[in-house]
């Protein structure tokens, strides 16, 4: 069931929690609502479920207006952040709850309820816990039971509020994968809320980035990372290295740092945003880029070596970060305190106060002269 959200405005007193939200969430896909706390993502999810009502706007399920429909009649599965399992019921009774409260005419027989609860427990691989009470389960188990309970009604829409927020990293990763598989198998439409960008990028088919009650960008995880629409999305999604300065004659300057831009831009203030993978490190400046940095820390994080850099003779609000491969690292053997030069390959340029970037590339320019690049020759 596809979900359409039209012109939703939501106020809490005089505070406007959501500003004119228009979204279309495609049938059978997982959509992640991503944003910092207070961005209105949970409120939006609750409005979709019918747990909150919006002052303006409408919600449509597969072309059917459900705006005025009570949460009881919307037939969506909702998984709460803190699971909301009923403490005084066993796991099996928890899962059976939705079936037991159906009107008499639609309610399946006792044997069938038992059968379905058994299947659901099997689906979440927790059949052996049927007679336990929620207080006897671990966080990950509780979350899976909460999912099974929400799935008992066979809803066509599953909504999850920070589903993995309270779990530790490993369990979270396993559950994410498990949910993805479950979704691919059963093909329900799913919307989940998260403030964890990694989670959003890994689990979703489509990510909705929100801030201050507004939708910032809607895109597939890949496009979202590669081409953010705004400074906010840049900052919020992954590490970004920023150089701000003044432009004259196509050259961005700040202190001892300067960078020649590959395309003509107007004079004035400007900022260039660089993803860690869009920057190389060299032992000498290039003709275009003179960005001296000092190595502050080196950490091995899985498949790459992450190097934190402190600007030398210029300023940046946050330390720069560049990832290099283990091969490069071994060939180059950088030490803490070494000074080297950052060289951008691709960057995203914001002129003045503009909020949409222009992507610049230095790759197809003349190779810089007299540079001893530490990057492996395969590049």
């Amino acid at each position: 069931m596809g979900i359409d959200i039209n012109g939703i405005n939501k106020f809490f007193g005089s505070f406007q929690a959501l500003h004119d939200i228009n979204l279309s969430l495609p049938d059978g896909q997982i959509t992640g609502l991503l944003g910092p706390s207070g961005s209105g993502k949970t409120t939006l999810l609750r409005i979709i479920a019918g747990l909150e009502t919006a002052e303006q706007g409408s919600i449509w399920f597969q072309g059917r207006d459900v705006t005025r429909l009570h949460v009881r009649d919307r037939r969506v599965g909702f998984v709460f952040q803190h699971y909301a399992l009923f403490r005084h019921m066993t796991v099996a009774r928890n899962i059976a709850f939705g079936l037991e409260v159906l009107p008499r005419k639609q309610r399946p027989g006792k044997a069938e309820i038992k059968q379905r609860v058994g299947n659901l427990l099997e689906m979440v691989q927790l059949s052996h816990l049927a007679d336990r009470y929620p207080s006897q389960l671990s966080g990950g188990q509780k979350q899976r039971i909460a999912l099974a309970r929400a799935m008992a009604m066979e809803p066509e829409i599953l909504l999850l509020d920070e589903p993995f927020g309270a779990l530790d990293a490993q369990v979270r990763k396993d559950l994410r994968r498990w949910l993805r598989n479950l979704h691919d198998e059963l093909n329900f439409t799913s919307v989940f809320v998260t403030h964890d960008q990694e989670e959003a990028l890994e689990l979703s088919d489509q990510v909705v980035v929100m801030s201050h009650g507004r939708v910032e960008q809607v895109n597939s995880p890949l496009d979202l990372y590669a081409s953010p629409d705004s400074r906010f999305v840049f900052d919020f999604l992954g590490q970004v290295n920023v150089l701000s300065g003044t432009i004259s004659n196509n050259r961005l300057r700040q202190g001892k740092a300067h960078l020649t831009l590959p395309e003509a831009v107007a004079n004035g203030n400007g900022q260039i945003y660089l993803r860690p993978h869009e920057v190389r490190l060299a032992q000498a400046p290039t003709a275009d880029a003179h960005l001296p940095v000092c190595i502050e820390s080196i950490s091995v994080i899985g498949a790459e070596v992450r190097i934190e850099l402190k600007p030398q003779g210029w300023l940046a609000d946050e330390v720069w970060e560049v990832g290099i491969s283990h091969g490069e690292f071994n060939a180059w053997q950088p030490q803490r305190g070494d000074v080297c030069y950052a060289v951008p390959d691709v960057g995203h340029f914001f002129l003045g106060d503009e909020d949409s970037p222009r992507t610049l590339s230095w790759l197809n320019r003349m190779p810089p002269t007299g540079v001893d690049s530490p990057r492996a020759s395969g590049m």
Partner: protein
Amino acid sequence: MTQTLAAGSLPRKKVRSVTARVLPGFGLSLGISLFFISLVLLLPMTGLVMHTAGMGWDNFWFVVTDPRVVASYKVTLWTALAASVFNCFFGLLLAWVLVRYDFVGKRLLDAIMDLPFALPTAVAGITLATLFADNGLYGQMLTAIGVKVAYTPLGIVVAMAFTSVPFVVRTVQPVLEELSPEDEEAAVSMGASDFTVFRRILFPALWPAIVTGGALSFTRSLGEFGAIIFIAGNMPYVSEVTSLMIFIRLQEYDFPAASAIAAVVMAVSLLLLLLINVWQGRYLKRLHGGA
């Protein structure tokens, strides 16, 4: 000799350091509590038992099974039961209103809730008697429909209910406040009706608090004296409560008999409170976990 002593004391020291408590002051605080409990609770109770023990088993049995006393047990038990059952419903309703809704004067209502505790029980009794007397404000209306409250056992129920309703309100209120709205939302999102949500989600969570409040209300009613005697009419075999029987025996300077009856009331109350505590401990363990 010193060698063995030192060697012997070493492991003991080690064990002590392992079991050392993180919170300081355990010995002191427990000591003071026990001392105080002994002083104000156990000592008078022991005196009571001693007094009773002095009179011999036959005499004791004779006193506590006196027909007039037995009649007072019956009256006290059923009126206390009626009052506490009424309080369970009414107290739950009051707690619900105080927690779930916002309205003008909510703070005031919350404060008024404790008035039955603050008011001298005799004042409560006189006030109730005046209100429910045949020519009183409520009494007139009730007489019109043929119900007589003042100077009947029904009056006892009213007095008991009045003096003990805060027990239920104050035990249910915090539990209700702490219930997470998510549980109800989860139930509703699965299609449960409001009544089903109350019956299957809210009530089981509130049940232990209601029972505790009800039991407190019941035991308090068993011993209530001041409020009752003004409204009960105190007719032997009809509307005499046990606490009044104790008072009557005291006025007759029959101290052993008074303490014998008092011992019976105390034993029943203690047993009831103990049973409730044990039951509640088990129920809550299931909810909150812990092996």
